[in-house]
């Protein structure tokens, strides 16, 4: 198998042909109609067809990740089950790349297969009540005790914690050095004693997220990911994957929130006013321009020259989603006064653009906060893209324990 050089899926490509052979032999040995879903997913992982860009033996074939589309299309056409990627996004998008980049061989063998099949759901134990944008200020303490670490602290905004078997956890292991230096990263078993998951109810009325209280939680040193004191570097890699995951979405013309507004506009002429028409067309243009920007970003990535435009994508998305969802409520008038349900619930999946206008408006408020606030992203653009000077830092050379809080 050739593994060098950029490749794009094409019927005549020997790699593509080889890949389709592998798909056929998986389908032959494990006919989807006859075998159990989980058995099929495990066999798919073992055949290297889970994520072809991953190494051989870890669910992949060590070939360019773009070729995954060939596998996914062929398996979908054969009616094979998938691993419900929407409901295990944190594991696939954040935990897995981190484990691959920084984990030991034993950890990769132990964690990646059940992560990919969805047998073991992962969550992210990063933010704390006292450490949001300033994640490196976090104070959840991990103290070494022989072959174990004892963890105490509180994490917040943890989606899926109530379903999760594992969490990626960043802790403070050395309070006597400046904040970025004294952190250590773990895979945290969510089923051990001392892990207490409580729902965190949000403005929409439901609880997508959790607070996680960690009280004398004992983690084996073998579940540490990366070196002691190297947690910030590991966590930074995880967060880069988060931004890629959020900013990489593509949509057809009038997709997403805009589509909800335009369909109401077309179906309900009695709601139209000149002012709303101006606002609609202004947002239509901005949404379409953002869509084309996303396409340009994809072309850059396909050409192997990703630009800094990715940083713009999330800023555009959150602003548009907020303006459009607000416009929709105003357009709906009386109907916009209603809300469907304030009952405390735990949604399995989050749909920003479902048919719930009030919910969409409220949920969109989170878009400019989650995954890096708009203000932090603007700092990043200003400093890393435009090359402007960094913020004045008062916490750089101060031991973590001496920082004001």
């Amino acid at each position, binding site marked *: 198998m050739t593994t060098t050089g950029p490749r794009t899926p094409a019927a005549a490509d020997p790699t593509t042909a080889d890949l389709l052979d592998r798909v056929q032999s998986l389908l032959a040995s494990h006919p989807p109609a006859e075998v159990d879903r989980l058995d099929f997913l495990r066999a798919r992982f073992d055949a290297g067809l889970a994520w072809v860009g991953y190494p051989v033996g870890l669910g992949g074939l060590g070939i360019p990740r773009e070729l995954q589309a060939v596998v996914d299309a062929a398996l979908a056409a054969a009616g094979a089950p998938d691993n419900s990627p929407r409901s295990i996004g944190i594991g696939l998008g954040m935990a897995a790349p981190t484990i691959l980049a920084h984990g030991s061989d034993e950890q990769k063998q132990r964690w990646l297969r059940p992560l990919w099949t969805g047998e073991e759901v992962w969550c992210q134990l990063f933010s704390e009540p006292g450490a949001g944008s300033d994640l490196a200020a976090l104070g959840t303490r991990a103290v070494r005790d022989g072959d174990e670490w004892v963890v105490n602290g509180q994490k917040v905004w943890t989606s899926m914690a109530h379903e999760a078997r594992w969490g990626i956890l960043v802790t403070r292991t050395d309070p006597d050095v400046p904040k970025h230096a004294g952190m250590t990263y773990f895979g945290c078993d969510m089923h051990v004693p001392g892990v207490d998951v409580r729902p965190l109810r949000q403005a929409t009325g439901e609880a997508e997220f959790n607070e996680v209280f960690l009280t004398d939680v004992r983690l084996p040193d073998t579940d540490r990911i990366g070196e002691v004191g190297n947690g910030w570097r590991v966590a930074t890699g995880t967060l880069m994957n988060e931004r890629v995951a959020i900013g990489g979405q593509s949509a057809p013309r009038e997709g997403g929130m805009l589509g909800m507004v335009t369909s109401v506009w077309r179906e309900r002429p009695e709601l139209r006013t000149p002012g709303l028409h101006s606002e609609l*067309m202004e947002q239509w243009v901005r949404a379409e321009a953002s869509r*084309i920007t996303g396409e340009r970003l994809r072309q850059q990535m396909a050409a192997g020259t990703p630009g800094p435009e990715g940083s713009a994508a999330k800023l555009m998305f959150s602003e548009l989603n907020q303006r459009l969802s607000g416009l929709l409520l105003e357009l709906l008038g009386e109907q916009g006064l209603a809300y469907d349900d304030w009952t405390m619930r735990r949604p399995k999946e989050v749909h920003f653009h479902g048919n719930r206008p009030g919910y969409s408006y409220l949920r969109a408020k989170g878009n400019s906060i989650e995954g890096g606030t708009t203000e932090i*992203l603007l700092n990043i*653009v200003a400093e890393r893209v435009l090359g402007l*000077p960094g*913020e004045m830092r008062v916490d750089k050379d101060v031991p973590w324990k001496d920082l004001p809080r």
Partner: protein
Amino acid sequence: MTGFPSLLHSDDEQQLRETVRRQLAARADWSSVLRRVEADDPYDADTWRTLAAQTGAAGLPVPEELGGAGASWRETAVVAEELGRSLAVVPFLGSAVLATAALLHAGESELLPQVAGGERTAVLAVPLSTWPGSSFPTSVSVEGDALTGRVTSVGDAGAADVLLVPAIGPDGPSLWAVEAFEVTPRTSLDMTRPLGDVTLSGSSGRRVAEGAAAEAALQHALMVGAGILASEQLGLAEQCLETTIAYLKERYQFGRPLGSYQALKHRLASLWVEVTRARATARYAAGCLATQDPDTAVAVAVAAAICSDVAVLAAEECVQLHGGLGFTWEHPAHLWLKRAKADQIALGTPDRHRAALADLVDLPLGAG
């Protein structure tokens, strides 16, 4: 890709950009542009001849057999971007874009080779504020082959050897090439794109198109013009952003570079997001124009609406963030501001383009 043209520059396009940028930097930096616009004859004929000879800029989309470069509107857009950065006073928009598009669409082959080679400058005689979709102008009437009337605010009129004049006669609309005309210069908001009022007093002309073909040629020219202007606006916005970033890195107040203040960093970062969005729309419009994509009308309206406002925003930010310096005559910010504001009005305001879009994508204001 799902039917999208490439939104990236090819190696050839990149090379063209570098050649044009080099030429303009050497011949038309902003201080020489400023000196020129205060002189009696603002047009920089030498630079225009050099650009035409070295890059084919006078006739990029014109086929080689008609004396052009045999390229497309994509390459034209590359040159427009660079001219937006430099503001060199050359009749590119009037001749190489508007008149060329009209002549190409009309199937004209006598005048086009001369225009494409840069030997003669042709200018489409409509007010620069005319927008795609506007009704056929009635300010000039024709009887036999004699044209009479007055067209105000014509962009690049002062550089014209030949005018392409839309006129109304007993048989309806037609398009004429006219060589005898009088131009009264106007004092223009944008000093780098002079306007003139054109008077025709029974001038004889040569008919280039008539009836529906004349209307279609004019509409095509306005559409192409608005689409290419978006690239000029993009170039201007990029120039303003880059100049402002550089200034905020070197200007110190209160013992810190201005660029270290978060209030200013966020403004520039937000502007960068807008410019990023503008770039994608301008490239998409140029790509659609080059292949006559069925989505061209939407692509042009989106690009025109976005890039017009982004150029104005970038120029206004450039003035404000340069402080007192940005308000002086001796800094280029005012030249960019004037061009940006005039460009916002030229070939359709953003609101005109959004109104056109409302029809194109079936989002009417009325009950339909």
